[in-house]
């Protein structure tokens, strides 16, 4: 299979591109190298139906004349390609307008390497190994009388940054990810997922068992009237709340534009709620620096229920006379900084305690297709999916059909009654998330569906 260039080689290529860029005479220049070697085996109806691999790398050149900024990218990495992308970036930056918000590309700061980001076992993974994993997962589903749907992927991501101000940063990361829905003939469904740096720490059979058992428990789901219910949310559902809250409220650009709910010290969650972003957490998917080559700082977003800090990139930090916290996305980025290594603090309860403490409510496995309805109040709508259960007097009494919620995630965090001590590493849209299960006093369900 394809193998990634070591990140030192990626940095060397970035430096070579930077040389071409600097020959164009800019005031500042930045080269970002992004490499991806990935493979994904996909299965449905308990058979493999798709199996893919790709090798790609791009070089992104940002060039600055005065405060005029232009960005060009290419995946042609021969000398001609690197020379041409530098020319393109120069032309763009000279054509651009002065940007009064732009102060400077970031100054270099020491970068502590992120331990535990790379596993040779993942890098060496083969299609045969992924197929074996899929077969093991399918086997469990077969044994429990349901069918397996999902994917097993492995990847190597390489990032390197070289700038005219002296930033030199590089990292190779690996990731193995298994997701599955088990489904039966009556429409019952159960979800499970696992992600890790090291493919050897992902057990497809165990993932398959969790999903299949959840599907079996979902058979014969009953209708339930929408309304306000106490809920226990599994980590899969909690991940959506944490990611959405960070995206809507804790980007410095969102605050600068006035579309965030954030105010320093504002009461946002129950005292049990603490959320932060930490690229160095070895339990997460570590990333030492951002796409501008700035060391990632640990940023507390919510501490004991109160809003604390925001994440910044160099542009938003410059507007406030601050330094970037290391949360830039690749240039050009009109959407602002993002927290992409999120974690929520564990509690002291076991997951079972959460359910036992519920008088009458719902145990929700995951959310589906969520979307903000009112961003500043963090009102979000979405569906439950793949395992929703009614709980009475602390016991799961049976599965229920899926429900639509329209709920302020801020109010949900304020209503957190208990948090599990176990946490699970998950993938979001843009992020990795290390999150517990939670119990919330009231959650508003506004509609129902037919399954």
């Amino acid at each position, binding site marked *: 299979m394809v193998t990634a260039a070591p990140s030192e080689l990626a940095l060397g290529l970035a430096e070579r591109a930077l040389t071409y860029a600097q020959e164009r005479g800019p005031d500042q220049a930045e080269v970002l190298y992004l490499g991806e070697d990935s493979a994904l085996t996909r299965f449905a109806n308990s058979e493999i139906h798709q199996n893919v691999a790709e090798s790609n790398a791009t070089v992104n050149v940002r060039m600055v004349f005065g405060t005029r900024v232009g960005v060009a990218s290419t995946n042609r990495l021969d000398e001609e390609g690197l020379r041409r992308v530098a020319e393109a970036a120069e032309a763009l930056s000279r054509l651009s307008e002065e940007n009064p918000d732009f102060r400077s590309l970031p100054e270099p700061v020491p970068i502590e390497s992120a331990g535990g980001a790379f596993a040779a076992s993942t890098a060496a993974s083969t299609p045969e190994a992924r197929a074996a994993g899929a077969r093991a997962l399918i086997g469990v589903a077969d044994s429990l009388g349901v069918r397996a749907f999902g994917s097993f992927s492995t990847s190597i991501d390489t990032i390197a940054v070289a700038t005219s101000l002296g930033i030199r940063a590089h990292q190779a990361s690996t990731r193995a990810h298994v*997701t599955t829905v088990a489904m039966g003939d009556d429409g019952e469904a159960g979800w499970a997922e696992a992600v890790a740096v090291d493919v050897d720490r992902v057990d497809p059979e165990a993932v398959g068992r969790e999903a299949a058992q959840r599907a079996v428990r979902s058979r014969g789901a009953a209708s339930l009237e929408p309304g306000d219910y106490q809920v226990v949310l599994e980590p899969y559902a909690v991940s959506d709340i944490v990611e959405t809250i960070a995206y809507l409220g804790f980007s410095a650009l969102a605050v600068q534009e006035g579309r965030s709910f954030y105010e320093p010290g504002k009461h946002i969650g129950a005292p049990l709620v603490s959320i932060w972003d930490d690229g160095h957490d070895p339990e997460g998917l570590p990333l030492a620096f951002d796409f501008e080559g700035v060391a990632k700082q640990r940023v507390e977003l919510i501490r004991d229920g109160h809003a604390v800090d925001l994440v910044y990139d160099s542009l938003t930090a410059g507007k406030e006379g601050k330094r970037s916290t290391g949360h830039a996305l690749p240039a050009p980025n009109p959407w602002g900084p993002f927290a992409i290594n999120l974690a929520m603090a564990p509690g002291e309860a076991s997951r079972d305690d959460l359910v036992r403490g519920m008088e009458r409510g719902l145990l929700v496995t995951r959310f589906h297709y969520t979307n903000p309805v009112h961003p500043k109040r963090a009102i979000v709508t979405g569906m439950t999916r793949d395992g929703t259960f009614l709980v009475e007097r602390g016991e799961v009494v049976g599965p229920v059909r899926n429900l639509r919620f329209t709920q302020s995630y801020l109010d949900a965090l304020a209503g957190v009654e208990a948090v599990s001590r176990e946490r699970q590493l998950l993938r979001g849209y843009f992020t990795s998330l290390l999150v517990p299960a939670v119990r919330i006093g009231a959650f*508003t369900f506004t*509609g129902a569906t037919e399954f």
Partner: protein
Amino acid sequence: MRELTDRALDTATARGAAYAEARVVRRDERAIVVKTGTVAALATSESEGIGVRALVDGAWGFAATRSLGPADVERAADDAVRIARASATAIRRPVQLDERRPAHGTYATDVRIDPFAVPLEQTTATLLDADARMRAVEGVAFTEALFAAQREAKTFAASDGSFVEQTITHVGGSIEANAVEGDEVQRRSYPDNGGGYRAAGYEWFEELRLVEQAERVAGEAVALLHAPQCPPGRRTLVLDPSQLYLQIHESCGHPTELDRVFGTEAAYAGTSFLTTDKLGSFRYGSELVDIVADATAPGGLGSFGWDDEGVAAQSVPLVKEGIFVGYQSSRETAPRLGRKSSGGMRADGWNRIPLIRMTNINLLPRPGMTLEQIIEDTDDGLYLHTNRSWSIDDRRLNFQFATEVAWEIKGGKLGQMYRNPTYTGITYEFWRNCDAVGDTSSYRLLGTPNCGKGEPGQAAHVGHGCSGARFRDVQVGVGKW
């Protein structure tokens, strides 16, 4: 180019592939984003590579590489075959493809002005002008003006002798004004919140006349701040095309994708309530509802000459006089229903496999009433404009949408403006309550450039043509406000 594809196909077949495809794709993009008076992005990108899909022992394998060197192309073909062999260890139904003649020919989007030849400073000046006019309206907090162009040159070749070359060009432009006060953030955008894309040249960006729309858009955003909350209740809705296109996308486009029906998207985007037992008999909507998947619509984001399996572009009915009659399908899925592919397989670049993707999913206009006449014919209702939020369950039944603005209809006239309108329903109940579809006068070809599907993720440009339409007895106002 033929040398490259021949090398890939020869390698794959020599390694044992019963059938193989190679796609060489080069994608060029340019984008300009002006945010609140500054040029926030001025960027170009290019990406090229080759993807090889091989069928071995009834199973698929795919490998892609950015390098077009002979050794790397052969390695990709070799990897595709090896991956297919690994797939074959866990299949229960060997892949069978429908018959088709080998595809040959060329296709290009009709482009009058090459968007990559227009000086960037000209486009930037237009965006800055539109942006300044929005910001000149008192109360506007932040703004955005956007231009984007994409050109994809792709060669498809297959071991059955097919060889097709296509150049597809898409251009988009839009403006957006936001007003903020207290907890309220109100937005108005033009031409819709999907970016205003069309398969066309720069002439489309000029036709949008963003500068002329700027003051109106900004004024409405500010006015929304002080408009009343849209009151809840069972209401008659008249949907403008700027909202109806996404209703079609979510509640008809996705559920008629046959791969979803067969479960191959189940673990990600979900499945479909339009199961095969419903084909030909299920009442999806009222008799006024005719919906087609039309890859031949001029200007549509889903228009092409051949899909990424080499199947010629065509228009196929999905819903006819309200009855569900057809699926969007592929060479692999259609034969399972005794049908031929609808020609809907599209890949997001050289490094992705083709999936069943929407082409242009269009609600056909009906002669009889203009959109204005539909409003005049409505005694008590709401006119909803420009999508703001969307969500639907994983079988595409329970949906909820929000639009940027609503206007009350009283006695056939537009009146009070409302903010934060939302509506919800069950797909087939909603479409069965459609009692008016506008004629061609309000018909617009809209679309979205970011339809997500598949693993690894793919973003597709898909088109939706529609005129305005009316729906009775819809639940408006969801949640606690």
